[in-house]
């Protein structure tokens, strides 16, 4: 097991490095000079020494690769510098927003998993007509844009029924509507995967045998189908979590949920590149950790793989 972990990390290292490089490159090469922007906001007459001093401060006077290595070495010590916009350290900025986004992503994931399992399994076991209707509902939910759904939910729940608040300060009650929005969309899309996977499993011979043996449907589901689908499902769950972490930006801004989405939108419009770089690195790390977890679940659920890993 330890060897597996080590191998996994070793193969992931180039990916992580590549990601950090791209994150750095994207931000450094994009137009929009934060130095000039800053001076402009101050209304100062920039003397050439001033410009040079600010450039040196941000390390902009050195060539690209040496800047990259400087940044990388500091990043490994979790020092991502200071936010240009607010002056706080980038780590502090991210920590202000991270809990909110994690809470939203986790609760949306749980909601989506629950919803997808209910929808997918019902579609598989129901009769022709109900099954088709459920599948139709799933496809419909997948097709609806999340931001439109969010606005409709606001209209119904906040205006007509008065149940929710619009100005979120991160308390639990404010989490319900955004979670509902994200869970419906992600849950429908996961539900499709569940349906497809379970249906594919049901075509296998061992299910034929189980039916012939006279096992009850719930037993077949949980003892024969679920262990085999859990692997690929876990991978999709990990991907969905990664997508929820990064892609909830629009929903966060509509509901005023104080998460990372707001941070990155503001950082991009203010050309706050230390924040943008750190955000990209965190997203990559998040993706890496969740796919690692998914791989774990895959291995744990498949006895053959388990043996393989613990032996070799």
């Amino acid at each position, binding site marked *: 097991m330890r060897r597996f972990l080590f191998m996994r990390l070793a193969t992931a290292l180039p990916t992580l490095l590549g990601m950090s490089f791209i994150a750095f490159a994207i931000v450094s090469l994009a137009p929009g000079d934060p130095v000039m922007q800053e001076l402009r906001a101050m209304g100062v007459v920039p003397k050439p020494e001033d410009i040079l001093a600010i450039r040196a401060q941000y390390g902009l006077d050195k060539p690209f690769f040496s800047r990259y290595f400087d940044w990388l070495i500091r990043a490994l010590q979790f020092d991502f510098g200071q936010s240009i916009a607010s002056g706080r350290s980038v780590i502090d900025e991210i920590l202000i927003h991270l809990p909110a986004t994690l809470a939203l992503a986790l609760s949306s994931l749980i909601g989506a998993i629950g919803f997808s399992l209910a929808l997918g399994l019902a579609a598989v076991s129901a009769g022709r007509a109900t099954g088709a209707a459920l599948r139709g509902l799933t496809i419909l939910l997948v097709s609806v844009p999340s931001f439109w759904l969010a606005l409709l939910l606001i209209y119904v729940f906040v205006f007509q029924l008065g149940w929710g608040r619009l100005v979120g300060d991160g308390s639990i009650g404010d989490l319900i509507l955004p979670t509902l929005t994200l869970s419906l969309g992600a849950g429908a899309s996961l539900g499709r995967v569940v349906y497809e996977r379970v249906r594919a499993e049901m075509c296998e011979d061992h299910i034929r045998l189980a039916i012939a043996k006279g096992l009850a449907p719930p037993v077949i589901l949980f003892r024969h189908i679920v262990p085999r689908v859990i692997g690929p499902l876990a991978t999709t769950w990990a991907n969905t979590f990664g997508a929820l972490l990064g892609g909830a930006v629009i929903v966060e801004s509509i509901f005023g949920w104080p998460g990372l989405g707001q941070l990155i939108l503001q950082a991009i419009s203010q050309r706050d590149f230390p924040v943008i770089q750190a955000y990209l690195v965190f*997203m990559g790390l998040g993706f*890496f950790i969740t796919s690692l977890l998914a791989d774990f679940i895959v291995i744990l659920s498949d006895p053959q793989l388990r043996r393989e890993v613990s032996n070799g």
Partner: protein
Amino acid sequence: MDDIIRKTRYLPVLRLHVSAGRVGLVLGLFLLAEFVALGLAGYVIALPSPNSMDLLARLDGPSADHPLGTDHLGRDVLARVAAAVHISLGAALAAMAAILAIALPWGIIAGLSGGRVDAVMMRLADIIMAFPMLVLALAIIGFMGASLQASILGVAAAWWPSNARMVRALVLAAKERDFVHAARLCGASRGRIVLRHILPQILPPLAVIISLETASVLLALSALSFLGIGAQAPTPEWGAMLNEARPFFAQAPHMLLVPGLAVSLAVLAFNLIGEGLRDILDQREPYQW
């Protein structure tokens, strides 16, 4: 033949074999045809220009003059939705074409080469896939300035790795077939193998992938326009229209409902087509308990 009869149900009324997949496919194609018709409607019916403002009739609900109402600047909503068909659907198809242009060769080369080339190519794809789509799109828009073209490129840049992976998976399965081995042993050139043996095999599942991905791409493009970084005013585009409708949705709900429905139905059309195709292609029948 047996399979088909078992999968489908014969409806004497219609004298057709129907299955959920087929119904879905037909429904999807029908919806798509409706959109094409809507897009062409401007040439047939006399609709007002999508950009002409009639400030006295701002935020009017549906009426005889304006079947779907007017927006906050007095522009006819129906005309704008119809004009948006070219733009939104066109952008989605353009993005899909760009994605395929990269993902197809990438996946085929990686799948056929195997070994180190495959590993490197997939590693590069993984690196890009790890970034959230929005951030990549914003980065590209930072380079190019906000516009529909920039958002198309941004979506293409974010989407091609996952498509490349899917193509590669299909190619890996396809190249293991006996006749492909045979062709190689006969000395067929790479190109011939790809064109005559691999591509025909992967095209049907690829069609499924294309329609399903087009649906996602359309959603992503309208999301970017909703944020204001895709299609720019006054271009009629469904996502942009939803963005403009936000301040007014308490007073003029039709501004919000119509473009939202348009996006949902268009995406639904592609999803139905994709799912329908997949149903038809999937010959396996689950054992019912």
